[in-house]
């Protein structure tokens, strides 16, 4: 395993998805010492997952939008940026000191600027039975498809809504995988809510692509629209999927249920660094408070890509370039001249974001799929149900942080990634408050688990030792 070559860099970029690849390339092209740290085995993040290693080499199968990633990787490799994969950043503080675990050992590096490009994760989809083996996210199936050419084999149901769902379905079919049914949970009223934003969407690149994908999938798979209830059931393994559509309940046998209702910013590292976040009522998630250059409330930390608010891969690339250009302007103003002008980048961003409001309105997830009830599990790690959360509210739990003491929600290994949004919305509803008022878990380093042995073997200076040793 390669450790960072230096202990300080001008720019450290965290995450090698679209935003991180673009940011690191821009910073390095301007001559700044640049380190890119990424948790995965190769570059690409989720959208361009396994771009440098995928066994699915026929470009038509994953589509042109995927292969854009290959150009980004090539551009990065032409620079002097130092890139380390399988590097898990577990700490970032206000002094811009980064704790990173690589091959079972940790190192600390200092940055003059940090660009967080930690992207998105799939929104929790807490339906009854969502913890059963055989229930996965659509993104999980797509990850296996891109990185290992694995396709669903048994009776497969895809449920939910959003652009990724249709893209995944098309990719599975192209690779000869099986899909028995698609259950579309888009609420009918969303079509009306989205209508005023239709013009921007119709003239955006999303429109033609989305239509073609839906046509491709509908030709081969039965699609049920207006699904308003969804239950996975089985004894230790998924056996059936039940749903209600148009007032009728249906139950079907299934071996695999793939869930998806959009993506939300992956906030853990940014929040642990102290970056201020606000509840985004449009996208129903926490988004960092940023200026036009992506700068956060913590001096020296910028956020680019979907971690800055969901904008998609095209916008992520441009946000990465903007954040990196801003870093260059601050650290080496003379070098900024060789980069694309900020005005041009902002025009690119406006173009890439076209149609987003329409998508956000159309694919706004329904309340019953965000706020569960009864015995449905909310916190997968600690196995806490919606009823458990409501019972805790009834006896005095006021918000997610108090709830930890009652039920340990968010204290398991995933550190709230899969329950945080649900807990906030569930408690907000129960207490008749806004999610902003209810707040979120107080997140702290280490944001990914590391062993005590690894922490103990971090090299310590004489001052570190003096700080804790008496006498």
């Amino acid at each position, binding site marked *: 395993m390669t450790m960072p070559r230096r202990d300080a860099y001008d720019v450290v970029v965290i995450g090698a998805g679209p935003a991180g690849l673009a940011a690191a390339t821009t910073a390095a092209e301007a001559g700044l010492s640049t380190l890119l740290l990424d948790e995965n*085995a190769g570059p690409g993040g989720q959208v361009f997952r396994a771009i440098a290693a995928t066994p699915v080499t026929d470009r038509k199968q994953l589509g042109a939008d995927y292969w854009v990633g290959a150009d980004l990787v090539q551009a990065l490799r032409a620079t002097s940026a130092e890139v380390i994969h399988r590097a898990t950043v577990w700490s970032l503080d206000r002094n811009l000191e980064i704790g990173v675990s690589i091959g079972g050992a940790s190192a600390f590096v200092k940055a003059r600027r940090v660009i967080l490009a930690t992207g998105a994760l799939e929104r929790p989809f807490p339906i009854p039975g969502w913890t059963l083996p055989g229930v996965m996210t659509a993104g999980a199936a797509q990850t296996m498809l891109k990185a290992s050419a694995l396709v669903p084999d048994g009776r497969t149901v895809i449920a939910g809504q959003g652009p990724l769902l249709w893209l995944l379905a098309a990719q599975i079919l192209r690779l000869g995988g099986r899909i028995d049914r698609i259950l579309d949970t888009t609420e009918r009223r969303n079509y009306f809510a989205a209508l005023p934003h239709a013009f921007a969407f119709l003239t955006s690149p999303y429109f033609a692509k989305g239509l073609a994908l839906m046509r491709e999938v509908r030709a081969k798979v039965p699609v049920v629209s207006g699904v308003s209830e969804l239950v996975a059931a089985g004894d230790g393994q998924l056996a059936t999927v039940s749903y209600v559509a148009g007032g009728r309940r249906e139950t079907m046998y299934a071996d695999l249920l793939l869930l998806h209702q959009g993506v939300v910013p992956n906030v853990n590292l940014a929040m642990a660094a102290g970056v201020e976040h606000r509840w985004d009522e449009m996208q129903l998630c926490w988004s960092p408070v940023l200026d036009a250059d992506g700068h956060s409330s913590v001096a020296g930390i910028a956020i680019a890509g979907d971690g800055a608010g969901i904008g998609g891969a095209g916008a992520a690339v441009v946000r990465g370039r903007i954040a990196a250009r801003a870093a260059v302007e601050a650290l080496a103003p003379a070098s900024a001249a060789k980069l694309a002008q900020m005005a041009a980048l902002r025009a690119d961003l406006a173009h890439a974001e076209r149609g987003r409001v329409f998508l956000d309105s159309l694919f706004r997830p329904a309340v019953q799929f965000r706020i569960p009830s009864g015995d449905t599990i909310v916190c997968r790690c600690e196995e806490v149900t919606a009823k458990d959360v409501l019972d805790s509210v009834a006896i005095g739990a006021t918000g997610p942080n108090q709830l930890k003491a009652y039920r340990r929600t968010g204290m398991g290994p995933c550190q709230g990634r899969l329950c945080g949004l649900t807990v906030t919305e569930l408690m907000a509803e129960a207490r008749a408050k806004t999610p902003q008022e209810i707040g979120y878990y107080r997140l702290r380093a280490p944001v990914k688990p590391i062993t005590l042995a690894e922490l103990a073997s971090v090299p310590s200076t004489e001052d570190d030792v003096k700080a804790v040793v008496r006498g």
Partner: protein
Amino acid sequence: MFRRSELDHRPSVQIFVDGAAVAAREGDTVSAALLASGRDVRRLTAVSGAPRLPYCMMGVCFDCLVTIDGVGNRQGCLVPVAEGMQVELQKGKREIGR
């Protein structure tokens, strides 16, 4: 649940799952190799002993936790397979020191 596409021509890598040889492919993560193996690779949770399989495959859900080469609670979806790797499915809580 999943099968390998015939497009996949990557070299194979042998790993061991609870002692049994499993054929993976170069570039697979441990979790992908387990799911592709056709074996029962469910872990049991530390809290209630409920069976689970990986949920997100991208490093956020921790439902893919496995013991790899003697180190417990590794995220199988983030670790690439290597020849001879020993994988153990976790049944309930981890023992101290692992």
